[in-house]
């Protein structure tokens, strides 16, 4: 009974898979720092979406649930941060953290009854949540200024030092998105992460092994809401202006495209998807009126040939490599 078996759920010897994406992200950010403000802005949006999608991946990828309403928490984050920092003079970082707490509480209150639903019903309920918050941002003009939007939002700052250039902010966004991915990776490898994965695999089997699926679904939903809220706040501080459309249905569709293109349920998929989907339209801008068609064609091409997303290609590569080694 002295058999030594490694119980880590990741196969050993694949360190490059963790290091390579970090190097690629840092290289991309470095490239951004020597580029125009326009490129910096596009990259900034990509990293904000990377944070949003990393959170969404917890609920949809790791736990296998459907949520069409995470934009609601981004809106809470964005408007909360904007109001607290602009009208009440809070430090942006403090406002971001406070609205994350608010979003977390909202997620518990909404998630507790909603997560009893499954499949399409859960998707519709969460979609309704997104629509309700969207309507509130339009109609509650005394708080949100409606379609006029909220302007003059101060940039993010740390300990009194304002990140008042776009390039400073890009660095902060890169660091924050990498921290976000790092936290997600640690959680995925933990007992908690394995419990989420078991829910995605088979809810009844997970329950039979002792996993409290209602509790874990709620925690995953709250984590996704915290990430969404942070992304919403970061957007407000990065652009300095927000309006209801930013946190509308487009955000949901965009984030789905990023998640599936990058690789849902994978560690780096959300980041890869966010970067590709943000940069691709800009790269195809020279095609003018053909831009949208080319953009869509590229997305469809990737989804056909990499159905598990771009991050999923590394798994195929690893398997092929394993087969070659086995034959040798």
């Amino acid at each position, binding site marked *: 009974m002295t058999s030594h078996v490694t119980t880590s759920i990741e196969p050993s010897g694949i360190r490059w898979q963790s290091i390579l994406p970090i190097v690629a992200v840092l290289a991309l950010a470095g490239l951004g720092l020597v580029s125009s403000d326009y490129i910096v802005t596009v990259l900034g949006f990509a990293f904000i979406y990377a944070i949003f999608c990393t959170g969404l991946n917890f609920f949809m990828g790791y736990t296998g649930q459907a949520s069409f309403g995470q934009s609601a928490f981004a809106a809470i984050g964005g408007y909360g941060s904007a109001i607290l920092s602009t009208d009440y003079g809070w430090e942006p970082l403090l406002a971001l953290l406070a609205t994350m707490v608010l979003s977390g509480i909202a997620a518990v209150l909404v998630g507790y009854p909603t997560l009893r639903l499954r499949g399409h019903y859960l998707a519709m309920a969460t979609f309704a949540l997104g629509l309700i918050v969207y309507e509130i941002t339009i109609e509650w003009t005394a708080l949100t200024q409606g379609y006029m939007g909220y302007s003059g939002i101060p940039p993010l700052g740390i300990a009194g030092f304002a990140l008042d250039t776009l390039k400073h902010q890009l660095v902060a966004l890169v660091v924050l998105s990498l921290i976000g991915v790092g936290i997600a990776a640690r959680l995925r490898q933990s007992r908690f992460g394995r419990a989420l994965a078991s829910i995605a695999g088979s809810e009844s089997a*997970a329950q*039979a092994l002792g996993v409290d699926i209602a509790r874990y679904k709620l925690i995953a939903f709250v984590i996704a809401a915290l990430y969404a809220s942070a992304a919403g706040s970061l957007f407000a501080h990065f652009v300095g202006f927000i309006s209801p459309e930013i946190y509308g249905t487009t955000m949901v569709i965009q984030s789905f495209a990023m998640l599936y293109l990058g690789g849902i349920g994978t560690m780096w998929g959300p980041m890869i998807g966010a970067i590709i989907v943000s940069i691709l339209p800009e790269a195809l801008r020279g095609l003018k009126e053909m831009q949208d068609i080319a953009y869509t064609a590229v997305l469809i091409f990737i989804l056909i040939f990499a159905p598990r997303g771009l991050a999923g290609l590394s798994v195929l590569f690893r398997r092929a490599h394993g087969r070659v080694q086995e034959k040798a």
Partner: protein
Amino acid sequence: MSVLASDKGNVPLLEARDISASYGHVQALKPTSLHIAEGELVTILGPNGAGKTTLMRALTRLTASKGNVFFRGEEITGLSTPRLARRGIVMVQEGRGLFPQMTVRENLVIGAYLHPAETDTQMASVFELFPRLKERLDQSAGSLSGGEQQMLAIGRALMAKPQLLMLDEPSLGLAPRVASEILGTLRELNRRGIGILLVEQKAPLALKLAQRVYVIALGKIVAELKTDEIKSHHDLARYYLH
């Protein structure tokens, strides 16, 4: 939690009294009672649609049920499936319920969810029983053969340290030799003191293992007898032994 005053003196491992379950307006399981003694291997036989799976799901609360259930004399009625797993009641579902995208290792590690500190020792004990799983450790569960998948399903359930193991059709879709091998393993587990409740279509195989049998028909247990008594019931013997 009330404590069962057992009629028989010996407190059973599991006792269900008037347990029933419905799907909408259809009562799939009529009020029915059964018990399993400590260290006993009991099988439930019955035709397709008789309510065998519903009975298993009702006992493990995967399906909402009525009636009272006792585990070692303590009432566990209404406890959720995860709480029952904490008590040591673990079920291997029909179709195995594996996590197909995950590796064999991941499936086993999740099996030890309630006992993370004992993952290594439990895994070693599973490999003793099913050495083939050790060879397939980094292979995805979905890529295993049917027999290996069933070994993994049972192995994963053993990681949860069951005191009562419920298995729903473990030989489903397996070649006779493999089915016989899998069911033979259950005998070994039973020897180690694990109570087993087995639903099995391959009745002759199940009857070789079990000490007692319940026959279920139209959502109700219609007979309870010791395995060797089945031969004296001509209609049951004709139906289940050939």
